[in-house]
């Protein structure tokens, strides 16, 4: 494994995980602010344990799947996932749908938990823990998929995992210092970039799974990423123009 092969997987996993971990952190922080760190930590630990179980269960199964079938299946899923992110980020950039707002999500989660407190005083600690667990589990599932998707096709699970863990560590470190939702993270820009990278990986692996020999091999990924970047920017520009015309 060379650095040039590992770097795209590591970077894609790091950036994608950064987006997901920021979202999970906002909800865990809301739980911790309202109900203390105990239910937040317990819920988070339980969520991470379930995720670890999923990885341990699925990991060995991946080795049993023929590489071309694995590349095709993961390529198609990456294509759907990546293009979905790129579409959403482009629409947000064009002002068609509102930007993701961590402060608003924090306020919504806090209000929901306060409401729960009024209704069921006794079981609030439990409800808070479950909220943290759900946030970690739901966002973590996407992280697990991204790590497996960008890593499994080429034996790059280790660099992809390192990228995801680095994102977790970075968010936790910043979160521990600032103690508030990380609303200044340029989430849409990150999502746009990750959408571009995952779509490029998706086309590359779907093609390899179908038996297409891409010219330039791994270097073709750079061309694909540049083309998806261009398509996202053009699409976003046209969408903004159309929004104004149809408004």
């Amino acid at each position: 494994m060379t650095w040039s092969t590992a770097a795209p997987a590591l970077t894609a996993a790091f950036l994608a995980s950064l987006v997901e971990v920021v979202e999970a952190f906002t909800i865990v922080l809301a739980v911790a602010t309202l109900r203390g760190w105990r239910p937040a930590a317990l819920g988070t630990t339980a969520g991470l344990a379930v995720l670890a179980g999923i990885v341990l269960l699925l990991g060995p199964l991946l080795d049993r799947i023929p590489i071309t079938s694995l590349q095709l299946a993961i390529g198609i899923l990456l294509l759907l996932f990546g293009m979905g992110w790129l579409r959403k980020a482009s629409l947000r950039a064009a002002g068609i749908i509102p930007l993701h707002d961590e402060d608003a999500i924090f306020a919504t989660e806090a209000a929901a938990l306060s409401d729960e407190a009024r209704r069921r005083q006794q079981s609030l600690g439990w409800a808070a823990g479950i909220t943290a667990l759900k946030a970690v589990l739901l966002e973590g599932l996407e992280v697990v998929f991204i790590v497996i998707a960008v890593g499994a096709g080429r034996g790059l699970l280790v660099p992809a995992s390192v990228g995801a863990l680095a994102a977790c560590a970075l968010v936790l470190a910043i979160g521990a210092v600032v103690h508030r939702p990380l609303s200044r993270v340029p989430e849409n820009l990150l999502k746009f970039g990750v959408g571009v990278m995952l779509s490029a990986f998706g086309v590359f692996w779907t093609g390899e799974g179908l038996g297409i020999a891409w010219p330039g091999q791994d270097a073709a990924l750079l061309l694909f990423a540049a083309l998806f970047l261009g398509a996202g920017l053009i699409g976003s520009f046209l969408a903004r123009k159309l929004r104004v015309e149809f408004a």
Partner: protein
Amino acid sequence: MTMLNELAAELIGMFVGEKRLTVAVLTIVAVAGSLVNFTDLNSLVGGALLLFGCLVLLIENLCRSARAGVS
């Protein structure tokens, strides 16, 4: 059960964000696969269809979403 339902919805939502785009991408993959495996054409023809088909689909979907003003 509620959490399992939410997990299932999350998993499906990861790949089927917009049904029309999902169906169109899967169709392109199927056509490209057929070209590569069941015709005598150079496999790069299928590759080009896969790549440029996805790019065109993305731009078309963004324009249609903008016209409809929906997410």
